[in-house]
């Protein structure tokens, strides 16, 4: 196993564990109250319309919007962390086939692991922080993963070119 493979495989497995642990915590602690709050606030908003209490209805709708915003990002965090970790593990298995020097492969592997951690982190931060920081973190993660994968593609194409497949 090369150094870059070690980074991808251990990084991928560790981040997969983190993503699943977050999903476990979320399912046990937060998911049911969040779904409950979302459903009740939406139904309450229209029930209050029926009673003619429009200001109360708008308040309930605001709670629904905030809860849904939080719910979507929590699910994104879990889903993206696990899916991107799976990609790290797959790439790690054949990363030695990428036709770059091991030094460049080490950079690429680190970039991919960083992107895999940063993208869901940015999504999660949007729940707690306003302003550009969460979006910047997610964007940085997204660019790292897409750029890293594009480089891997180029490396594999070069590898095929040099007939190093067998």
């Amino acid at each position, binding site marked *: *196993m090369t150094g870059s493979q070690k980074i991808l495989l251990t990084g991928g497995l560790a981040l997969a564990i983190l993503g699943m642990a977050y999903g476990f915590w979320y399912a046990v602690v937060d998911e049911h109250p969040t779904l409950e709050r979302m459903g009740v606030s939406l139904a309450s908003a229209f029930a209050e319309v*029926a009673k003619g209490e429009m200001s109360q209805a708008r308040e309930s709708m605001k709670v629904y919007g905030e809860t849904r915003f939080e719910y979507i990002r929590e699910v994104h965090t879990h889903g993206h962390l696990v899916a991107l970790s799976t990609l790290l593990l797959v790439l790690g298995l054949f990363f030695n086939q990428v036709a770059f020097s091991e030094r460049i492969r080490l950079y690429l592997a680190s970039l991919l692991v960083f992107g895999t951690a940063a993208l869901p982190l940015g999504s999660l931060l949007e729940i707690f922080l306003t302003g550009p920081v969460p979006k910047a973190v997610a964007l940085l993660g997204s660019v790292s993963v897409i750029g890293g994968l594009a480089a891997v593609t180029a490396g594999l194409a070069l590898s095929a070119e040099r007939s190093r497949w067998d």
Partner: protein
Amino acid sequence: MSSHASAPEFTDLLKAADPARLFIIGGMFLVIAGMIFGDLYAVFILHPNVGNIGREMGAAVAAAAAGDPDSVFSHFGAVGNFLENAGTKKDAHVHIIHAGYLAFLLAFLQPWVALGRRHKVLLAKTFLWASVVLPVAIFLIHYVGLVYSPLQSIGWASIFADLSGLVLILILAVELIGMWRHMRGNGDRDGIVLRFDGRNSRALLTGGIALVLVGFLFGAYYAGIHLQEHESRELIILADLMEQASAQESAALDQGLAAYGGLQVERAVMIAAHAHVIEFGLLALMMAIVQPYVFLSRVWRRRLVWMMLGGAVVLPVAVYSEMWYGLLAGGVADFAGLMVILALFGMLIGVLRHTGKVDAEKGETS
């Protein structure tokens, strides 16, 4: 191009009762089961549910306009029920496939996991059992509800789903410790050298990476352009519906409900297209690794590879086209899903034949 026979490392990896064999075959079974379930979910649950949710939502808004709050809660309760029915099935579909992916990948990590063979076999069996219990428990959440539950908001099915998820996490942690031990000089130093089956593996690798890249770019486009716009549009539509219900403007209510339904479809197909193109890309990458060990004729291996790639390209495009072509595109997507399932099933048969060949060569068959 390497031939089927030129894979001694993998042959070792697939010896009888080896954890790698359990992980590979179990993982492929899980992915196939998850995909079949996904196709059934799309045909029998997803599409009828969209109509049911729209109907109940319309009834809830009409009840608000009629000044009947009890009826509003009743109809929104029905909406929640339909959403839970569809949501738990979608979650079961996603979780069984991802557990299968992880099992498949763990197979190839086994030579780098410095643990005793008996422990590794036990871990593999436990992982596969937990991978079966997790989606089954998620599926049952809607039906079991809170019956006999010791907790206020979590039922027995959720408890079993959470526990099986915890088991999977613990097993992955132990596998990671095993890899750490290997890096510190413990265990077998040979490892594995992956072999690629020439053109078939190359087609799957190229197709897989292209699909994942397209999926990422589409995801970035969705997140940058549509995610927040969809969120704010939903709140605007709902706020308008409240005002229209208060003013009892029935014609405007119908328009608002149609806009709300359209938004839900738009969001669902974009997310589904993004998710499926990446999932199929990952699957193609994994199948590239397993190609030299699919013990079938060259012609059939090639057919299965192109069937898989064809389905993997058509399904996300068809899902995305549902915005304009509705159920027709949905039918094409279901058919493309079937193509991927059949291709994967064919490859699984090839792997099973390969293990049989290995056993026969070792004289282990009865």
